[in-house]
Every structure is written in structure tokens, then in C-alpha cells.
């Protein structure tokens, strides 16, 4: 009996450590991750690698392309249109971040208060987020319409202005109008994040402040805002990345970058280069530039996340 036990526990009978139970156990999570890893590699990393490879060639329609190094990047960065599309992308992102942050915080503070039909109000405020981009663009397109749009009708009927407003027909009103649609679509994200953040601020802080004679503004300034610092930073970074890298659907559906390039973002220009002019290498280079800019913001986002985790720990 003892011999059997000795054999079973002796190093001679145990398997080599590399194939041991603990090793296989360590492999299990990776095995579970493998299918999604393969899927990600196929639909995300491979196209990304391919885009980088194409951006280093002079390939166009029907041509395989030759290696030209960073020539496409040089062409994009020194082109006449690049400063303008970069500026438009930056303005678009900035407008989105500022207003989504502001409106999101305002509505979150409103919806955090107790009042009748609060659940219904919360659902209504979330609604724009649930509307698909295409549907939102079509609805707003008709509302902005110069001849028959309801906005111009209301503006004239209420006497705000005698002349019709050219929402999408002039610059910069087109960019402002499109940014407005994007804000309308995305502010519920800010609302949800701020609402979640508000739940984490202990009520005792407000009670203590009240005892000390602090008014609502002082409480907001010294308790609420610092309490929402992490949420604010995360929301800002997320919206920046999203609006910079995804400045496409609403713009493309409503103006396609017009009038006269006024709303043409770097993403729209990249699409035009690829699918209208068949300059795949140039489009890929622009795509990589967008990726690098988004990556810079993403690194910032991750740094904030890690710092928060470290602070929580």
C-alpha cells in the first residue's frame, strides 16, 4: 500500500511539470478566449495590418501597388485638404465633448432628483441613444429642410426670424447643425454615466455640508464635481475617441462633407479617397493616421483607468 502511495507521489511517477495539472489549468482561460481571439484577429487585426501594408504602397484600382515607404503619408500630410479636414474633425470632436459633457451632467442632476414619473423621464432621455444613426439622420434631414422643414416653419411662425435659416446649406451652420444632431444622439451616454457616478457619492457628504451651511452651488462645486471627476475624465476620453474616429454616419447621410467641404472630416475624406477616387493607398494612410490619433487618446484613457484602479485598490 505504502509502495503505491510512494509511487504515486514520487517525482518518478508524476508527469513533467510543463504538462502538469496546474499548467493545464492555466491554459483553460486562454482556451476560452481563443475563439474571440481568432475572431478579433480575423476581423480587426488582419484588416488593420493590411491597411498599414497598403498605406506603404502606391496601389489603386486594378493595381497591386509597389512599396513606396511613407510616400502616401507625406502626400496626405502635405495636401491642401488635410489641415482643413483635421480642423473640422477637431471642431466636431470638441463640440461633441463639451456639449455631451454639459448636457449629460445637467440631465443627470435633473434625473437624480426624486419626482413623479422619474422612471418615465429617465427612459425618455435615453431614447435618442436608441435611435439608429440612419433613422436619426433622415428625421433631422427633414427637420432641417430649407423649404419644408419643421424647424424653419417654427422659427418663422414664432417670429424668431423672418428669413429661413440655411441649417445645412451654409458654412459654419452646417457643421453646427450636424454637431447638434450628434450631441442629441450621444448625450444620453453622458447622462447614464453621470447618473451612475452620482449614485456613488455618499449622501452623508451633502448632509455634512448642509450642517456646515453650504448652499446648493457650494455643494455642487465642492462635492458633486470632485465626486464625478473619474467619470468626467472617462466620458471625455470616450467621446473624444468616438467622435473623432466615427465622425461619419450623420455627416455622410446629411451633407456628405458639404457644403464645399465645410463638414468634411478626416474619416469622410478617407471614405471618398477609397470609394470615390479609388486611391486605396491614400485612404489607408488616412485611416492609419486616424488610428494613431485615436490611439493617443486611448492610451490616455487606459492611463486614467489604471490610475483609478490603483487608487481604488
Amino acid at each position: 500500500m505504502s509502495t503505491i502511495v510512494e509511487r504515486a507521489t514520487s517525482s518518478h511517477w508524476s508527469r513533467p511539470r510543463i504538462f502538469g495539472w496546474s499548467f493545464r489549468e492555466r491554459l483553460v482561460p486562454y482556451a476560452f478566449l481563443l475563439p474571440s481571439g481568432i475572431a478579433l484577429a480575423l476581423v480587426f487585426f488582419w484588416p488593420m495590418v493590411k491597411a498599414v501594408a497598403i498605406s506603404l504602397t502606391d496601389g489603386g484600382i486594378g493595381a497591386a501597388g509597389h512599396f513606396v515607404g511613407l510616400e502616401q503619408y507625406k502626400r496626405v500630410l502635405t495636401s491642401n485638404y488635410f489641415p482643413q479636414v483635421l480642423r473640422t474633425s477637431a471642431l466636431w470632436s470638441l463640440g461633441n465633448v463639451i456639449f455631451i459633457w454639459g448636457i449629460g451632467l445637467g440631465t443627470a442632476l435633473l434625473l437624480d432628483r426624486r419626482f413623479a414619473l422619474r422612471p418615465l423621464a429617465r427612459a425618455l432621455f435615453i431614447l435618442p441613444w436608441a435611435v439608429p444613426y440612419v433613422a436619426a439622420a433622415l428625421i433631422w434631414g427633414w427637420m432641417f429642410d430649407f423649404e419644408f422643414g419643421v424647424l424653419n416653419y417654427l422659427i418663422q411662425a414664432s417670429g424668431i426670424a423672418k428669413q429661413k435659416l440655411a441649417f445645412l446649406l451654409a458654412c459654419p451652420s452646417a457643421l453646427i447643425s450636424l454637431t447638434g444632431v450628434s450631441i442629441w444622439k450621444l448625450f444620453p451616454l453622458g447622462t447614464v454615466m453621470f447618473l451612475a457616478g452620482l449614485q456613488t457619492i455618499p449622501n452623508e457628504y451633502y448632509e455634512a455640508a448642509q450642517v456646515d451651511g453650504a448652499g446648493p452651488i457650494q455643494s455642487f462645486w465642492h462635492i458633486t464635481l470632485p465626486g464625478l471627476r473619474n467619470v468626467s475624465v472617462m466620458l471625455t476620453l470616450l467621446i473624444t475617441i468616438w467622435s473623432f474616429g466615427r465622425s461619419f454616419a450623420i455627416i455622410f447621410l446629411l451633407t456628405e462633407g458639404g457644403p464645399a467641404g465645410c463638414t468634411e472630416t478626416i474619416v469622410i475624406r478617407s471614405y471618398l479617397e477609397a470609394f470615390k477616387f479609388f486611391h486605396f493607398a491614400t485612404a489607408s494612410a488616412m485611416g492609419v493616421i486616424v488610428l494613431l490619433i485615436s490611439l493617443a487618446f486611448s492610451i490616455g484613457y487606459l492611463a486614467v483607468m489604471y490610475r483609478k484602479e490603483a487608487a481604488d485598490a
Partner: protein
Amino acid sequence: MRRITISGATLGIAALLLSVRMAVATEITWPSFQWSEPNNAPVMRALKKSFEQENPGTNVKDLAVPPAVFWDKQMTDTVAGNPPDVVTLYDPEIRQYIEAGLLEPLDQYYKQAGIDKSELVQTAKLAEKDGVIYGVPFQVGARALFYNQKLLSDAGLKPPQNVDELLDAIRKLRKPAAQQFGFMTVSKPGNQSVAYIEVNALIVGFGGGFFKDGKPNANAPQTVAALRFLKTLYDEGLIPRGMDANGYRQLFIQGKVAMYATGPFIAGIVAKENKDTYANLRAEPLPLPGKTTMAVTVFLGVPKAAKNKELAAKLITRMLKDDIQTLIVTDGKTFPGRPGFVPANFVAENPWFKAIEEASLSAKSYAPDGAEQYGAEVVKIVGEHIETMLFENVSAEETGKNLQKALEGFMASKR
């Protein structure tokens, strides 16, 4: 016994798979937005039916692709090396595809079908390079002035015969209270391909053009005069502002717009959607000083990388036979690739077609003359300058000058 049964079953499955494979091998893929167009679909289905009867075991796969995604999808599939068997191309696209070496030469199939290239419409020349033909002209969309006879006669007007009469009629027919317009053309940013086609009808009608013999021609007096005419229409609120082509075409169909410089496709749509407007639909040659017009030609081609090149080429050249050419007129209500198939009774029943027939025989391609392969980039440059003129109030003269400079710069970059 059991082994024999298994072997038999295996053979059966193999035979079935083989037959399925054979069936797939003779399937000609033809994705197009035109399969869902009310005027073109019956013609295409008639061609499909005839071809399948004449070539047993062949199936023409009619894939209706929404127009919004069609061009991107077709181009992506072609460039990725997985093209459909039949591609649909407009004037600039066919030049682009030919220059990129993506299309199969069709001369031998024309010969097999008994069609001589000289029988084709003038704009079919775009499908030729070095004497080799790469496409089949499906239909020619020559531009004429379509008008609603009732709206004109209600206003006591006759069809305009010159540009002054045209402008005068447009002003008289504008009735804001009734939301009625005398004319319509593009007046919305974006979709510059459509904008280019719409505006180019006026530019060519005035005798101008953005390009001439491969050189920019945007500051030519005729081109500037056309731009001035367009700006007058916009500035005076004579055309629906901020509305895309789909929107204002609906206004025309609903009898809210009196005149429209466009191609015969509009008649097919009006016939389908509003019988009253169709009964009053007439057309005249464009009453513009140049006495010329332009056309959008829809070409069909076979990609070099297509799986069933031979059958696809036979299919599209089959379209040029007399029966389908006649159907393109009678059912499609457009002008076909080969002239001479317009039945006399059809013109009697559809009087607007007379102007289209005349225009189709002499129309120029809308693609930039001599720079067709750069069509998409030229469209973008022209579109931006026209948007600047209309929406940022730049004069027509200044626009012509700036556009000329931009086009010259662009062409210099291509040398």
C-alpha cells in the same frame, strides 16, 4: 450488402453535389440597382428569360442591390478579385475600369451576336480603347426639357424656346403659397455625382463644359453663362432649396414642379407613380443657347476576373438584339444602345419621346471630355466650387476662374 448500400448512398450524394456544383457553375451573377427600378426591371427580366431559354442550364441571378450601396459594393468586389459576372457602369466609371485593365474585351462576342460597333450610339465610344470595345451600352439618358403641360397652360405659357423665355416662365410658375416651382435642379450640398449630372445638363446646354479635349474649360464664357443662370435660379428662390434629387423628383411627379432638364428615366418613374402627371408630361429639346445636350449612358461590362466570362459576355451582347432594344424603348421608356428601334406608335402615345430620340443621337457624354478616367475627382472639385457659388455667394465669374485654376492644378498633378 450494407457496404453496397453505403457505397450507393455515397455515390448518390456525390452525384447530387456534382449536379449542384454544375448548376452553380452556370449561374451568371448580375447584381444591379436597376433590378428594382420600375421601368428597367421588366426589360432586364425579359432578357434574363430569353437568355435562359436560349442557353438551357444557365441561370441569370438577378440580385437587386440598393442604389445607396451599389457602387461601393461593386467596386470593392471587383478590386478584391471577386467581381460579379456582369458589372453596371456609367460613363466615367467605364473609363476608369478600362484604364485599370479590369474589363474583358467584347469584340468577339459582338461578332458572335452579329452586331457591328458602328451601329451603336455616339456615347458608346467611351467603351472603346485602341479599337477594342469593353462594354455594352444598355441605355442612353439624353437630357431634354421635361415639362408638365397642364402647369404651363394654366399659367398661360407655351414651352420656352430660348433661355430668356425659360427664365421668364420659371419666374411666372413660381407660386410659394402653393409650394409650386417652375424648375428644379440641384441645390443641396453633398451627393456631388448627382449634382454634377444635373448641373452639367445646363452647362452643356449653354455650349460649355468643364473640360474640352482633355483640358479644363471652366472659365469659358458659355460655362460661366450657365453658372450664372444656375446662381440666378438659386438666389431668386426659383428652385427648391436644400432638397436632394429624390426629394425634388417627387415634387415633379406630384405636379408641383413645372419643368425639369433631365433624362427619360423620369418618364418611367412618373408613368409608374402618377398617371395624371404622366398624361401631361411633354419634352422639348433644351431651350438653351448651345443647342447641344448631354447624356448619361448605362454600360454593362464583364470583369476580367469574372467566373463565367463567356456566358456573361453572351448575355450582355444579347441585349443588343432587336427584341430587347425595342423593349428598352417601349417598357423601359429610355433610348437603347442601338438607334432605330423606336416604334412609331410608341412616339404617338408618348409624345415626349420624340425630343429624347433626337437628343440621344447627338448627345455628348457627361463625363469630362478627354479626362473621363478622372471623373470622380473632377466631380468632387466641380461640386465643391458650385457649392461655394450657391451657398457662400461667390459670383459665377469668380467660380469659373477659381474652378479653372483648381482643375488645371489637378491635371498638372496627374502628369
